[in-house]
């Protein structure tokens, strides 16, 4: 059976969340449109508001700030396009980094074509974007800083609270893609001066197809909606709300917060054992900061092994590669290249991500497989 070590790509649905969602899907009383004023609608609406409150509580925000979306990609799009379009004609500068998710980088590219100036900060070799870099990049034109909390490839944690404080002092809006961090790190949007926060359901053991953008309400942020129609979600995101997904998402967030500390130590121990076992192979390097990173993500470069062959040889292991070989492209990870890795080494890198259902047995089986196949491929390769 394939060993699942790809929690950063998607987490399995927690059985408790699945049960909650199934109940919601099968209950005839919850089939009403949550916008309807009749009893069925009110019942669905009540559960949605409960989920909104659960999510707000987890991130230190207010329920009225939680805008449900289809996931973090849509949340990122809404934050970036929404702010840029609302402020069109005024401030026209955004600061971000080279190691953001494509859900941020692609909207930024489009905004550049529309005349917005974007500064892409280069992280240091450990993947850290320093607050001082943000400060230096700020101009009177800067309207928004967008920075991810935890990098999806390396697991590196950015200093978002410091950046948030800096933004607040300068009157600049601050958006954080927290898709990878809500289940792994404490977040408080007020204390961290975060104005906009993207969250995804399927990164924290919830269902796919649901997420949220937290929007600071006091004072309210200018945000141009990107999907218009019925004026749902405070007018920021139209579309009939997906009651079962939202209810499940709310529970998933609540469980993630409640179990975070207990999970953290267990996953750290598994990750440390995995790293220790990989190091015994020799010719491996950690990608990203050694300590300023989350427990569940380990990105490792394997010297002397071609990336696509490594992935193929490890077919019994569900991990992610440092290249897009699966799509027929040889393009190396832009995140790892931004950290100074060569194309070859980036392509020979694997991201192992562990989570709630990872076991010590998974780690040992994975290590056995990796040792066997890396040794085999290295013996086939010409010695450098």
């Amino acid at each position, binding site marked *: 059976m*394939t060993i699942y070590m790809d929690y950063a*790509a998607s987490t399995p649905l927690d059985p408790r969340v699945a049960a909650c969602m199934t109940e919601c899907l099968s209950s005839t009383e919850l089939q009403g449109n949550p916008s309807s004023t009749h009893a069925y609608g009110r019942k669905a609406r009540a559960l949605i508001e409960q989920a909104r409150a659960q999510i707000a509580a987890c991130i230190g925000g207010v329920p009225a700030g939680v805008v449900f979306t289809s996931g973090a990609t849509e949340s990122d799009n809404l934050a970036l396009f929404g702010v840029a379009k609302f402020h069109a004609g005024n401030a026209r500068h955004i600061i971000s980094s080279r190691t953001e998710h494509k859900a941020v980088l692609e909207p930024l590219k489009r905004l550049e074509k529309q005349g917005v100036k974007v500064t892409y900060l280069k992280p240091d070799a450990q993947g850290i974007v320093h607050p001082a870099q943000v400060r230096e990049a700020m101009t009177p034109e800067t309207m928004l800083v967008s920075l991810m909390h935890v990098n999806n490839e390396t697991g590196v944690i950015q200093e978002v609270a410091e950046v948030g404080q800096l933004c607040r002092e300068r009157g600049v809006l601050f958006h954080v893609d927290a898709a990878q961090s809500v289940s792994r790190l404490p977040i408080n949007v007020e204390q961290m001066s975060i104005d906009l926060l993207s969250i995804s359901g399927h990164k924290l053991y919830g269902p796919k197809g649901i997420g949220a953008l937290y929007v600071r309400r006091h004072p309210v942020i200018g945000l141009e909606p990107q999907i218009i129609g019925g004026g749902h979600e405070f007018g920021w995101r139209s579309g009939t709300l997906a009651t079962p997904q939202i209810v499940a998402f709310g529970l998933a967030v609540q469980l993630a917060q409640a179990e975070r500390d207990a999970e953290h130590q267990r996953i750290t121990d598994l990750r440390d054992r995995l790293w220790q076992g990989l190091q015994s192979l020799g010719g491996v390097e950690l990608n990203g900061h050694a300590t300023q990173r989350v427990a569940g993500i380990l990105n490792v470069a394997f010297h002397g092994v071609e990336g696509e062959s490594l992935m*193929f040889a490890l077919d019994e292991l569900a991990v992610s590669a440092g290249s897009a070989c699966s799509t027929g492209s040889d393009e190396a990870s832009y995140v790892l290249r931004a950290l100074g890795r060569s194309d070859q080494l980036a392509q020979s890198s694997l*991201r192992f991500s562990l989570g709630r259902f990872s076991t010590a047995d998974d780690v040992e089986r994975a290590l056995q497989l990796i040792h066997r196949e890396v040794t085999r491929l290295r013996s*086939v*390769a010409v010695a450098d």
Partner: protein
Amino acid sequence: MQPMAVPMSEQTYNLRVRELFAQLTHAGSLNPAHDLLRFTVGAHEQGAYADFSVAHGKSCIELVRYQAYGCPHFLAACEWLASWLEGRAWLELSMWDWRDVEHVLDVPANKRARLLLLDDVIGQLRRLQPG
């Protein structure tokens, strides 16, 4: 990062590639005691290279070994070529056509350049063949 939760072998590589990749029986190098031809094709910067060692007689190729670095298609192609070469008369090298490997291994178009490295192997053998 590209999620690989679904095993990619069945989607990306045909059965022959999977068989050859699993059993790279000609991988290695030959003892220098043999009458050997040795040469390298490709480069690390190109993402694929192979070091061939070929033991031969006057009329034919006897043994072939290679050490290679590259994608599964390239490693499988090296293995296929090594098998194809062993026991083959020098004169038969003219029968080589890289399209045969492309067909057998169902190599995607974007990897053709790597297959052409095998043409370089044949070219080297023709250049170095005795007599």
